[in-house]
């Protein structure tokens, strides 16, 4: 009798060990950030302090923009509701610290992907949601029509703590032009100082110039020079060390872009479940078990497309229809002459 009991206990122990082992691997799948987000019931998202088209709040406090839509997509995938996002406006200076110190879980704030940022300071870039480049804005009556018209002594206003500051130096140095950098912490002060005449030119990412031009007292008196002096791939960032969360954010963004590629929109997403194309069916969760790999259910991508829309819809709603950059330029699908190309969801 005792012999059996001993065997039984060892069996129970073994089962228990096996069980804890399996539940632990299941729990490991569920990342810490994902668990915390589900517990809190909202996604903590760091955005800009107001950049029309990317992340901007209206008078009622509703955030819109392509950067905002990335966070909304993650909320739709993880929590089932694109509105369950808590936005934290951050200055360029605060953004990375806010992410590494656990104040936010996604930084989606027109942030340039660079090697040192990706590798050095505990961050991971998950993709590119807008291909941008640095440009210059000048007064039309200055007669400057190209960056080659700048002369020594030119003063340039820009934002503090950005890649813009570094590119500006590289650019003026390569031209051998001595210049005066005037750097402010907040974009609104840069605009005000440039508007008052403190600076001859205002330099930042071209999308930013287009968006901020609207804030000037006479937008029509200013123009953006045609040249682009740098590559600025802007994308969402997460903390290093939580690969599941990183994958969720990456594939939420990729889903939006791939949905556009396959013509899946917020309007037709449900009907696409019966599509003949297996890639489309996988995209709307009618085939395969892609959600499980991310620790999510299988409807996650369908919810993103239905609630937020595909990338093209987001671009049109936020950037094209607002008159900021009607021409998509490089931010067009690779199939249509742009460089938006994402790995397949399968």
């Amino acid at each position, binding site marked *: 009798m005792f012999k059996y009991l001993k065997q039984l206990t060892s069996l129970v122990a073994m089962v228990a060990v096996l069980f804890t082992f399996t539940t632990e691997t299941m729990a490991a799948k569920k990342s810490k950030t994902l668990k915390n987000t589900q517990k809190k019931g909202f996604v903590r998202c760091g955005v800009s302090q107001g950049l029309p088209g990317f992340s901007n709040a209206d008078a009622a406090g509703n955030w819109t923009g392509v950067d905002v839509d990335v966070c909304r997509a993650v909320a739709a995938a993880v929590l089932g509701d694109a509105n369950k996002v808590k936005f934290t406006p951050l200055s360029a200076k605060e953004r990375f610290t806010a992410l*590494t110190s656990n104040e936010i879980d996604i930084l989606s704030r027109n942030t340039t992907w660079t090697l040192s940022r990706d590798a*050095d300071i505990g961050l991971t870039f998950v993709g590119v949601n807008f291909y941008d480049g640095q440009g210059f804005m000048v007064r039309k009556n*200055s007669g*400057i029509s190209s960056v080659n018209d700048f002369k020594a002594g030119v003063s340039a206003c820009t934002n*503090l703590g950005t890649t813009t500051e570094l590119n500006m130096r590289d650019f003026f140095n390569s031209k051998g032009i001595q210049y005066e*950098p005037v*750097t402010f912490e907040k974009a609104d002060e840069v605009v005000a100082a440039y508007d008052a005449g403190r600076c001859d030119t205002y330099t930042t990412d071209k999308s930013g110039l287009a968006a901020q031009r609207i804030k000037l007292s006479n937008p029509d008196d200013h123009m953006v020079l045609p040249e682009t002096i740098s590559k600025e791939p802007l994308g969402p960032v997460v903390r290093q060390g939580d690969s599941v969360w990183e994958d969720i954010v990456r594939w939420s963004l990729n889903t939006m872009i791939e949905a556009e590629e396959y013509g899946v929109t917020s309007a037709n997403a449900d009907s696409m479940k019966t599509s003949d194309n297996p890639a489309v069916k996988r995209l709307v969760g009618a085939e395969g078990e892609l959600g499980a790999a991310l620790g999510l259910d299988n409807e996650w991508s369908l919810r993103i497309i239905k609630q937020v829309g595909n990338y093209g819809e987001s671009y049109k709603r936020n950037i094209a229809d607002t008159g900021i950059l009607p021409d998509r330029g490089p931010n067009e699908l690779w199939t249509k002459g742009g460089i938006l190309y994402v790995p397949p969801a399968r």
Partner: protein
Amino acid sequence: MENRGITFGYGFLSQESSFDVQFSLIEYDGSHSYFRAYLVGLLNTILVSVIGIIFATIIGVVIGIARLSNNYLINRTAGVYVEFFRNIPLLLQIFFWYFAALRALPLPQDTEPMFGVFFLTIKGFFVPAFVWNNLDVFIYSIIAAIISIIFIRIYAKKKQENEGIQTPVLSISIGLLFILPILSFLFGGVDASVEIPVIKQLSQSGFTYEGGIKLPPELISLALALSLYTATFIAECVRAGVQGVSKGQKEAAASIGLTPNQVLKLVVMPQALRIIIPPTTNQYLNLTKNSSLAAAIAYPDLVLVFAGTALMQTGRAIEIVSITMLTYLSLSISISIFMNWYNKKIAIKEK
């Protein structure tokens, strides 16, 4: 920190900073190190603090004494000034002076020169610079003048104690300060020419000035805001100090035949200073720390250059913030050590 993938170390200080700064007292550009960028920021912080302390003290003493004036108009004006400026948050005042200045100042091409050589424009205050030959001889002559003044003062004091005769120390000192440098010009081979800023066209509508010294509008508005704000507190310290000297002291001094100036200089001020100095030290410390608000208006101080741009480019928040905190701590402690020394010097010496 390891969990979050953050590395720690101060090695980055010797790396190339690769960003430029608008205004710097030492030679600097992006090819220098982060440590040099730190020095640039530190010197700019010290510069604006020193300018602020000097002007705040002058304005504060004038306003403080004006508040004690028997003239109703002067007295009330000073009172309104104090109540107005000390009750508005400093950051707002900085924004006000900066953006008011930017709105009010003319573009470089529309500027009327002051005395033909000073140009106050939206891009900065352009003043003539001196170009020196044999500058060292000139500096030696000034040092020589100062040393001889110190000796004359000691001699004059002894003479008064021994013989009761007063020497006109002030006029002799001023005379020496002028005569020795002039002699260095005549015989020492010192030569100075003035470089006057000239207007330069950048584009069809854009102009700036070249040559001379440029004081950026950020520095001017920050120094102005800091001085006007801190001066109100210093004015109150001065008023408290003078009022703290009992009336009988003045009456007694007057009754032994001292002139009103001598009463102020020999009797009232030495006693008042003892009351004024300790709270004024606090105000100097506040001013130095408040200068960190410069970041709001693009004046490249320690916070903007080092805890701003450098922090952003390196991502080394802990290292940079710790260095910045230590720097402000050392600055404040140096100021208070100096002020405590001065305070001890003017305190009553019990014999």
